[in-house]
């Protein structure tokens, strides 16, 4: 019965709605992606601790691609702010920049793979190389899904469907894109630290 007494303390019964369900769904979806990469990186650490581990220098291009992804994330935020202010001109420019830089990032990751191959680090071989390909590949796969979300948002922007009264879609898109950016930063720092 003590539960009822608890309720008395906050006499004002709170509204039960906590959040927009669609955004909440997005956050839970992000949790599952976090768990996917958390398990991957912990598998990496467990395996690395066992020795017989090939060490190699990360190709330069991954530094550049990281910078590109950060800029695209900033552009995404610019797009969101523009949508909030109903500034459609900069909204269109910003979301297009995000989109182009997203594609550029994917291309640079692929170039990075080619350089790895040139360095004789292959997908099939020592697990240290395999893990590198799996991390970048899995993240790239999620970037592709992010680009699909971007295309939807981009289409909505050019159909004038995104404005200060209808921000949900661009919010979902921005959250996901920022998340993918942070996820890459994590993987990048992780791979640099535990190479």
């Amino acid at each position, binding site marked *: *019965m003590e*539960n009822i007494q608890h309720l008395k303390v906050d006499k004002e*019964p709170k509204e039960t709605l906590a959040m927009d369900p669609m955004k909440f769904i997005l956050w*839970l979806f992000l949790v599952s992606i976090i*768990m996917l990469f958390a398990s991957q990186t912990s598998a990496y650490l467990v*395996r690395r601790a066992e020795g017989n581990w090939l060490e190699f220098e990360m190709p330069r291009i991954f530094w550049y691609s990281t910078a590109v992804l950060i800029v695209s994330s900033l552009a995404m935020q610019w797009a969101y702010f523009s949508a909030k202010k109903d500034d459609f001109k900069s909204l269109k420019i910003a979301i297009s920049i995000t989109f182009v830089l997203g594609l550029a990032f994917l291309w640079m990751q692929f170039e990075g793979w080619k350089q790895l191959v040139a360095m004789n680090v292959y997908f099939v071989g020592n*697990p240290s190389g395999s893990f590198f390909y799996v991390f970048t590949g899995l993240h790239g796969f999620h970037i*592709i*899904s992010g680009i699909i979300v971007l295309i939807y948002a981009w289409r909505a922007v050019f159909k004038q469907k995104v404005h200060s009264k209808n921000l949900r879609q661009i919010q*979902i898109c921005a959250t996901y894109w920022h998340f993918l950016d942070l996820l890459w930063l994590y993987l990048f720092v992780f791979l640099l630290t535990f190479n």
Partner: protein
Amino acid sequence: MSAIEGLDTAVHHEEHAHHHEPQSFWQKYVFCEDHKVIAKQYLITGIVWAVIGISMSVIFRIQLGMPDSNLSWLKPILGGWISETGKLDPNFYLALVTMHGTIMVFFVLTAGLSGTFSNFLIPLQIGARDMASGFMNMLSYWFFFLASVIMFGSLFLQAGPAAGGWVIYPPLSALPQAHPGSGMGMTLWLISMAFFIVSQLLGGINYITTVINLRTRGMSFDRLPLTIWSFLITAVLGLISFPVLLSSVLLLIFDRHFGTSFYLSEIYINGEALPNVGGSPILFQHLFWFLGHPEVYIVLLPGLGITSEVIATNSRKPIFGYRAMIASMLGIAFLAFIVWAHHMFVTGMNPFLGSVFMFLTLIIAVPSAVKGFNYITTLWKGNIVFTPAMLFAIGMVSLFVSGGLTGIILGNSALDIQLHDTYFVVAHFHLVMGAASAFGLFAGVYHWFPKMFGKMMNTTLGQIHFWFSFIGIYLVFIPMHYVGIAGFPRRYYQFTSYDFTHKFMDMNMFISVAAILSFLAQFIFLYNFFRSIFKGKTAPKNPWRSNTLEWTTPIVPGHGNWEGELPAVYRWSYDYSKPGAKEDFIPQNIPYSQTLESNFPHENELIATEKEIEAQNFNDQFNTAH
């Protein structure tokens, strides 16, 4: 990815939901987005899988109990897997064991149990029109269906389905040379499970979102029925653990099909070395059991939640220790993630690490004991109504306790050296997780059948079903503990070639006979279930005189569950036999201002808040598009 794409479509759909366009057959019964229909789809699919999965166990029980018997009569079904002399193919025996485990754990007790009752009860008990995203919910079922079709298809492969055990440890599962089933059978297993994981994530994300965001006005967390708490916690467990299984499956697929060496190292086959160097099979076990152990609670917790509800209703008493029940479920859920290595005590783990995991494992006994205690004290001096649901709920508690006790033995890393991979383990987890969850499932079906189909099931047949199942299950698994202590390893094709196993042949035969009898008893249920759907008596509105919101809906709730406004909630769901009350139950939607004769002093004070609750802007999906 699909989840995100689903968002947009779902938004569009829900905006149009209240136009009530006439639905075609496909929209209404097949690609339906209504949570009640999806729940029934899950239930029927789960029942079909259960029949297949349990039949498999009967076949290998015959092999174990009567190794000399002639199985030629199974030729019409099993064809070439039965030899000319009527013997079961040993490779197919391994496949049967593997598929029995996979089917029962994932397809019946995860999808069939969570899928049915989370879908059915969450919107009905929290007062919502439907799930947060009906589209994702529909996708969840059809991904499960796709996974089912692939898994079912793998049974018909010429080389047989996956046969490396349901835990698919590499290298057995990673090398096609290891076993006929490790070729195409294993590939299909992995594809099927990948779809299954997608299905579970889509479903689980939806359950969590719905419970947190779509509760009706007044339905605070401390008024949620324990069923909803258990479904919520189950979904959180799944959300955190299934991606890890996906991870391990992914690396296994790379090992199998691309030649990487995540799990493989220095293996010789027929004297020839494989190219794989540097992998670690133990790594797979860590990843697998990080899902595998929470999975046990994903299977069990919904059963515990259903049991709480059924026992409180049919004891006509408030649940004992409502908050302790929630706390113990949270405790079990938390501990579930830090005990996985107790499955690996004998795989060459550091003994010190073993003792840490042993300590954490044994702590699980505490919240489990709290739950057992609370169930029994709820029953204590209650006006017990022995409906079939109640019998199964009590049976569930019994199985949970007697199966849990052997868990304390198995959790010891020293004792596990003797008992690991014996029939003692098999008996333990079949009681505590298999049979207990299955009893939770039965309790749920008997209890909510009237709400699902608007008809009553036959009580007498239900009671007969219970007694045969209950006695049958104990007759199977109690002797199995002895067989295990005697040292019988699990997954062996036959025990005729060792001296020590001879004197236990009678006991093995006894177990098999009991297993066959309890299998046959399930046909009573099937008959009762399907007959009642069509010919059962029409159900009254609230047949069990229960408090929860689903019984305030029409007898067969339509789209949106409630006609008119959603009900408001003023009290918890366990006001049974309240002193002074006219009836022995007060539903959650009855305000305190109408029950002055039975209110406690602090409840009278709550009357002042009722106006505010009513005035709240509640989450009616018909009014606000989600």
